[in-house]
């Protein structure tokens, strides 16, 4: 029971550090291992990039359309015509919708679990959310197609009626809710666990002193959260969101099951249609010939680059905010 008290854990790191450094051989092996795995990771990433670029180059050299602006995917035809405009648009828009819905909810749940919920409720609630991450995406897809899509009809009509003036929520084409908007909602549910659990961990790391100092100054619980928890956790929440965004960008089966694909770009997100990189690869791979597969790989390369860009941007944001967050304190 003594181990449950916080004091030993506070002093634990220095103790283990001193015991670890007694064996110099162990240090060297560990350093070698970690350096090795770091290099291995870079090599794997580089070889993926080389492979994708090589296969993509074959396809791009024969493409009769413009790879960036063509609204079509006819890679197995003769002559091949294909472009990623629709896929890029669909991937980005559905991910933005997912982020817009998931991040506030996830932060809310994380705050509730870490600061508001009674202890008895917090743990089970945290695990229920984490369990969402264990559900395979095809199950989300089936659930989305059979339950979510029919249920969203009413919401779509409501959005069209009251928010139709925004252009984005105007519904110009009749149809079931097999749209990018529905995909966004589904993706939001799918990325909720990762964003929530990382945010929760970060919120729990807020130095006790900061919170107690704020309380001592007479702040309410909400003021404590606003003044010490949120600023401290901001960079953590951003990293969590980026992890979620990574999943949303690459999600395949759930999107393929729920979306009614078409090669059209429309900002009317309630209309059926559109497509994403991963969904298009899953849908077209089976019936593509050798060349068609190269073309799909070319589109995969764009997704690869997109993910790299997003992660790079996230690193930049975090690096800029690190000084203010108190994470170094």
């Amino acid at each position, binding site marked *: 029971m003594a181990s449950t008290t916080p004091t030993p854990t506070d002093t634990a790191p220095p103790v283990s550090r001193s015991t670890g450094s007694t064996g110099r051989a162990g240090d060297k092996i560990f350093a070698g291992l970690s350096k090795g795995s770091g290099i291995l990771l870079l090599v794997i990433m580089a070889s993926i990039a080389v492979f994708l670029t090589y296969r993509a180059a074959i396809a791009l050299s024969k493409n009769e359309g413009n790879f960036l602006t063509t609204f079509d995917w006819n890679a197995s035809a003769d002559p091949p015509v294909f472009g990623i405009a629709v896929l890029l648009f669909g991937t980005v828009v559905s991910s933005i919708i997912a982020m817009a819905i998931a991040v506030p909810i996830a932060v809310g749940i994380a705050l509730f679990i870490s600061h508001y919920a009674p202890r008895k409720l917090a743990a089970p609630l945290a695990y229920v959310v984490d369990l969402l991450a264990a559900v395979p995406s095809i199950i989300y897809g089936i659930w989305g197609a059979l339950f979510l899509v029919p249920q969203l009809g009413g919401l779509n009509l409501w959005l069209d009626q009251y928010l139709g003036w925004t252009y984005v929520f105007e519904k110009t084409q009749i149809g079931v809710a097999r749209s990018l908007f529905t995909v966004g909602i589904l993706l939001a549910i799918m990325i909720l666990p990762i964003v929530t659990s990382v945010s929760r961990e970060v919120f729990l790391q807020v130095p006790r002193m900061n919170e107690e100092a704020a309380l001592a100054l007479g702040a309410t619980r909400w003021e404590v959260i606003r003044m010490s928890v949120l600023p401290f956790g901001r960079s953590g929440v951003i990293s969590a969101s980026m992890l979620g965004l990574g999943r949303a960008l690459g999600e395949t089966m759930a999107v393929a099951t729920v979306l009614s*694909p078409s090669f059209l770009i429309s900002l009317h997100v309630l209309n059926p249609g559109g497509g994403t990189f991963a969904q298009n690869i899953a849908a077209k791979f089976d019936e593509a010939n050798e060349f068609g597969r190269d073309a799909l790989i070319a589109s995969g390369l764009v997704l690869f680059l997109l993910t790299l860009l997003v992660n790079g941007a996230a690193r930049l944001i975090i690096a800029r905010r690190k000084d203010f967050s108190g994470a170094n304190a």
Partner: protein
Amino acid sequence: MKLQRKNRLRASALGALVVSGALVLTACGSDDNTKDSGSASGKPSAAAAGDIKCDGAKGKLLASGSSAQKNAIELWVKNYMAACSGVEVNYKSSSSGEGIVAFNQGTVGFAGSDSALKPEQVEESKKICTGGQGIDLPMVGGPIALGFNVAGVDKLNLDAATVANIFNDKIKKWDDEAIKKLNPGVTLPSTPIQAFHRSDDSGTTENLTKYLKAAAPDAWPHEAAKKWAAPGGQSASGSASVAAQVKQVDGAIGYFELSFASSQSIKTVDLNTGAAAPVAATGENASKAIAAAKVSGTGSDLALKLDYTTKADGAYPLVLVTYEVVCDKGNKAETLPTVKSFLNYTSSDAGQKVLLENGYAPIPAEINAKVREAVAALS
């Protein structure tokens, strides 16, 4: 810490239980479904076993392709495997396009396709069929049903031009004048029409668009192709998903093989062909239309040219013929006996009889005779 860890363990055990429980339940559910759909689409014919010759068939035969003949192949495989023990036929129903790709990569013993091989595909097949080439054997005929789901409407007559305008996004409501005129005495609601097409490359799409192009050239400006060309509408992958959407959505219309309509009890459109009365989508009516087809392939290739504009009484012109694509010479030694014996069964009288009982149409007798010759000559 200890306390928490214990909780954690307990919670994850509980979670595992819930998840595995759910998995077990879903597994049961899907089992039941296959059983249901099997019995709904018809019982396997009891006579079959005696007619099947298994000579030399052994091991596992992989095949893939058209989802149009999925339900027919499933029954054939069931009967065949019951008669020939130790043989496993595994047909992956995907799409015609995928079947031919798999065939030309040499991964399957035969492929199912709703449209005959194109010249370049024949050329490609010569790499796989050493000394021979890929040929088309018409094996399953059937009507493409236009399934609809409109509340309060049980019977619907349409002609080719109206169908073309519906799928072309020109007619938008069910109480449109053009539809009213074809359906006197039927009260049509003002529900918006939601037209569903295939999102994957499909022989069913190609046959529908060939029909529309031939029977209503003014209303259907697009080329006939496996890929859907018209604007608007919604899409789904595979006949089964299109049928599922039509079943689910009020105001929907979509196209798929009749067997999908009958197994999910979806109402189908009667076509106004110019014959004395509108023609229903049935196996018999499709057979009448297929009987007018001519063989357009050369040698042992039996690709058919269908007549989509027939006005014969009781002939349903919106039909497709599914071919089994095999090598005439140069089939793989290990699968050849199984391919021969299986196709021998499917083209036999017993095999063709299974079709009519399940919403498909048998291949007309004189063409079927040539198919049997071609199967016997496979090497």
